[in-house]
């Protein structure tokens, strides 16, 4: 975006404001024109109707009582102070009998035997200095004795109000437009500033800085909503990036030592003269080493996938059925290890989640329990609904448990406690379970099976919300 004092002109908001201002001005002008035309037209019609009716009344006076009666009617009307009409009654010689005007304002020499419409102007006197010249609409007729009667009605008087309104609006319109433009300018500047902020964040992120966050004002407007979503997106991105980076580092770190060991073994084998049987043995050993490396690698990969997975693929699944199946899958293995296996599985549990990942996680927990519980021990495997609309899958064993200080640590990748080092395993089992728990917005909880008594076995609880 260009900057500078007039950058706001390029913003969408300002352009919209401009368009609305123009539309508003056009609409106002149209409305006023229409209003003016309609009002003026109606008033004209009304004035003419009244003028004609007044003229007819006077004509009747003339017909019934002759000049005397007409003159009297006119004089009576002259007594009313406020009136709309102007009268002029002159003899055939132009002598004024009754008259509001100093002289007949129109040429009466033509044929006036029929009522004629006239329009004329008189000087001043319309009041309040509004107009020095008043326009008068009139009707004129030469009567039977040659005298001339003119009745007029002032038009300007009646239009004054309309004129004033129009003038007020006309005066105010520029201010209105100015205000609209100012409003447009300020909202455009606000929008531009907010957008500019977001643009800067985007640029920083493109530059590799994922820690930037958009400002959120207190107003909760659409920019704030956008900023919130953007911040959430950035947080997720940052998390994914760091997961990826950690995975990369973990792979580099944890594959280096087994690979070096492998290389050393091969190197040593190369230096020794050996017969075919020996060589074969070395090769078998090597394949086993490579298999271990690959299985570690696979475990790292699946852990990374879980970390990067989204809840988009979640389905509603019957947790009771899944847990039952896992119990059924592991029960014989427990018996073979001479462990008592008990399952306490509540009916009708169902959650939204990923079936394969949950099965893998539960299988890891049971696997650990079987591995670390000495023969003769007991494993209790259960699932039930708990508070806050959650379910827990728990595995309790009677093994040696995990010391309190190591409980957080064992969930980290590749952490294996001393007694576990001799057993097969990648050190990623619990890390995967925790990753699955986090993916489901749940948690993995390790405690002692019996209070905090040492060596009372381990209780592992995988707590999952019912709907994610």
């Amino acid at each position, binding site marked *: 975006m260009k900057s500078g004092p007039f950058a706001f002109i390029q913003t969408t908001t300002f352009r919209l404001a401009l368009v609305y201002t123009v539309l508003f001005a056009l609409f106002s002008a149209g409305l006023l024109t229409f209003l003016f035309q309609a009002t003026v037209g109606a008033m004209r019609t009304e004035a003419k109707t009244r003028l004609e009716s007044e003229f007819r009344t006077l004509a009747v006076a003339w017909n019934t009582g002759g000049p005397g009666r007409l003159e009297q009617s006119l004089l009576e009307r002259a007594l009313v102070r406020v009136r709309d009409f102007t009268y002029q009654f002159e003899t055939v010689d132009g002598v004024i009998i009754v008259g509001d005007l100093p002289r007949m304002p129109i040429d009466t020499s033509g044929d006036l035997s029929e009522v004629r419409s006239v329009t004329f102007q008189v000087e001043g006197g319309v009041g309040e200095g509004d107009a020095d010249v008043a326009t008068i609409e009139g009707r004129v007729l030469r009567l039977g004795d040659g005298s001339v009667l003119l009745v007029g009605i002032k038009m300007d008087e009646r239009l004054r109000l309309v004129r004033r309104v129009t003038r007020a609006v006309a005066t105010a319109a520029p201010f209105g437009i100015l205000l609209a433009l100012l409003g447009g300018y300020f909202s455009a500047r606000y929008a531009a500033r907010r957008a500019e902020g977001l643009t800067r964040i985007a640029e920083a992120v493109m530059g590799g800085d994922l820690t930037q966050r958009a400002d959120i004002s207190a107003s909760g407007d659409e920019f704030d909503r956008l900023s919130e979503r953007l911040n959430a997106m950035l947080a997720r991105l940052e998390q994914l990036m760091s997961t990826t980076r950690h995975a990369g580092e973990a792979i580099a770190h944890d594959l280096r030592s087994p690979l070096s060991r492998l290389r050393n073994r091969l190197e040593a084998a190369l230096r020794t003269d050996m017969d075919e049987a020996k060589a074969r043995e070395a090769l078998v050993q090597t394949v086993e080493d490579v298999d271990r490396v690959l299985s570690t690698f*696979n475990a790292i990969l699946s852990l990374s996938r879980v970390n990067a997975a989204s809840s988009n693929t979640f389905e509603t699944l019957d947790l009771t059925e899944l847990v039952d199946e896992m119990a059924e899958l592991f029960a*014989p293995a427990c018996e073979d290890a001479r462990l008592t296996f008990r399952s306490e599985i509540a009916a009708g549990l169902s959650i939204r989640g990923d079936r394969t990942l949950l099965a893998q996680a539960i299988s*890891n927990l049971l696997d650990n329990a079987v591995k670390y519980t000495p023969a003769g021990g007991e494993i209790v495997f259960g699932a039930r609904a708990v508070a806050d609309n959650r379910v827990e899958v728990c595995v309790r064993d009677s093994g040696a448990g995990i010391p309190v200080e190591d409980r957080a640590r064992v969930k980290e990748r590749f952490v294996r406690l001393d007694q576990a080092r001799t057993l097969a395993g990648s050190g990623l*089992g619990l890390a995967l379970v925790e990753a699955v728990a986090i993916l489901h917005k749940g948690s993995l909880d390790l405690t002692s099976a019996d209070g905090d008594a040492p060596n009372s076995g381990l209780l592992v609880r995988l707590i999952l919300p019912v709907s994610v």
Partner: protein
Amino acid sequence: MRVLVIEDDREHADFICRILTEAGHDVETAQDGISGLVRARESAFDVLVVDRMLPEKPGLQLVKEYRDAGGATPALFLSALSDVDNRVEGLKAGADDYLAKPFAPEELVARVEVLGRRQAVPDDVPVTRLKVGDLEMDLLSRRVARGETRIDLQPREFKLLEFLMRHAGQTVTRTMLLEKVWNYHFDPQTNVIDVHISRLRAKIDKEFERPLLQTVRGAGYCLQA
């Protein structure tokens, strides 16, 4: 069995060829998607082994086009991507099985043989009786007997045996069993499957002179008369 391996990585293709040839199969290779599709169409193979990432034409599209044109040869996808989503995607495109790299040679051989060989009784064909040697299974009354002796099985053991009987004479791996009998797609780290097999073996073989359920070293199991 004639197998077409479509894999662009030379060394990996050679490796697959070797293990399949050693298992007694006739193997041909193609290096890219287009020539692979052409070969698959013009010649009759028993199984196609298709890598997912191929030059010219991705494996997914290859199998889809092959199926759309009416090709019926079973296809096995090989892929470094082992997500459930990828597996589902592959199966949707028309593949019959999916194997993630790296894999044990025995796993590949077992899967190729299961795909290619006329299965004793296909999984989806409804039958009422299965018979391997003197072992008989009645799928209607859910009764299993060996000779005159009745054998009582748990429901899962029944399913496991049914799968083994339908694939009689073929090697099935632990992963295949977890997939087909339990319907879970992950690598069982422990010996859970072996324990189930040994339970089953104790019931169907222990009392009898000739064992039917063999362990194939490094690969899996095979039920054979």
